[in-house]
């Protein structure tokens, strides 16, 4: 009996991880497919940091890290950034949210939005510094571009949070 019970828990974990993967994929496809959310106010929606933050808050640093790698790989398909860089950034962000973020914040919408926004802002600072150093583009201009991405990604990010929450609840019930 004990063995069956463990199997059920493992299956639920696997189903939950699959749900998260599908959710990340769906958000990526929706935001990058031509004519959907790929060109909103001259920017492409990026809700994946919010989803990774939500996963990390609900399932801890390990799931957050793995989903961060997956999300980063998805992002690298359509961007010209070196493959692996987005994955590394998003994975470390997932680990930090799951290990440090949960110590200081409650698991609710505003925390997820704050963390996701912080990630996009930091990504913007990093990117703007890079372009300022190597392309002599004013820091403020690139950074403003990232703020625009942030502005259009908050609502999809909030929707993503509720989806992640629903998936987590659905597959976290213990069966007796």
């Amino acid at each position, binding site marked *: 009996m004990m063995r069956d019970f463990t199997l059920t828990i493992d299956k639920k974990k696997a189903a939950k991880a699959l749900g998260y993967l599908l959710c990340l*994929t769906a958000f*990526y*496809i*929706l935001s*990058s*497919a*031509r*004519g*959907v959310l*790929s*060109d909103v106010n*001259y*920017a*492409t929606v990026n809700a994946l940091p919010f989803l990774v933050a939500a996963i990390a808050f609900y399932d801890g*640093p*390990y799931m957050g*890290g793995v989903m*961060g*790698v997956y999300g*980063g*790989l*998805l992002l*690298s*398909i*359509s*961007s*010209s950034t*070196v*493959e*692996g*860089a987005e*994955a*590394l950034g998003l*994975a*470390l962000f997932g*680990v930090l949210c799951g*290990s440090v973020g949960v110590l200081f914040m409650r698991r609710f919408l505003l925390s997820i939005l704050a963390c996701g926004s912080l990630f996009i802002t930091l990504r*913007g600072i990093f*990117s*703007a510094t890079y*372009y300022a150093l190597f*392309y002599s*583009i004013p820091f403020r*201009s*690139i950074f*403003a*571009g*990232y703020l*625009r*991405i942030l502005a259009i990604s908050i609502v999809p990010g909030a929707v993503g949070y509720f989806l992640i929450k629903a998936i987590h609840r659905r597959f976290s019930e213990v069966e007796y």
Partner: protein
Amino acid sequence: MKLLRSRLFGFVLAITLLCTGLMVWSAYTDRPSVLSRGLGMVVTPVQNVLSEAAQGVKDFFGYFYRYAALEEENARLQAEIEQYREMEQKYLVAINENTELRQLSGLAAKHRDFTFELCQVSSVYRGAAQVGMVLSKGSDSGIEQGDTVMTSGGLVGYVSAVGPNYSEVVTVLDIAFKAESKISRTRETVIAEGDFELLSDGCFKLSYLPTDCNIQEKDLVETSGYAGIYPQGLILGRVRELRRDASGLTKYAVVEPVDEITELKWVYVVKDFEVVE
């Protein structure tokens, strides 16, 4: 030491090594990794379907809320067609004259043989300093990294990475884009490159022009064909205006591409071309 032995530290280390490995692989081989290729193979067909569906919905509702605009556009296009018909006549005369002049001067005409691959635009990416797109075909169709991407109007960009069934494209608007070009009217050689300031207007620029350069508004810019990177004579765009650099020592020209890059649905990839002098 306790931290170094913790499970979380090991996990972070593993992720860092994996991602660093991917970065090194990507930088070294200039190709997407197996992971990225696999994801691209799965995601791109879904993007195609979704893009088509979105376009269908947009077109359907467009009939209702854009009827007046469509009528206006139709009238304008009719007028343009008339104008182009007249121009075509003039061009035919000019082409005949040009052929005779070439023969007279003893120069051999340049021959180009393009091998085309028609591709659907699966997705468009607009970053803070990047404008890229993903196409529906890849190495399975013979597309290679560096291949030229164009429409019947002119150059769109180049293939920056290739997966089995998708290709990533850096467009002429991307700040990573740079190409040696010519002004069609004067044959002056110029450098065309993406520019951050002009990106949001859907334009790019011709840099470092001397203040006394002979470039005018509406001049056509075309690829020079030097070094064989791009085929010769592909139209890059039309000069919209000339501006002075911040230093005041040089000018630059703002160029608008022939096509609305982010609105393209289909493009051609030039898999092979030959320039015979």
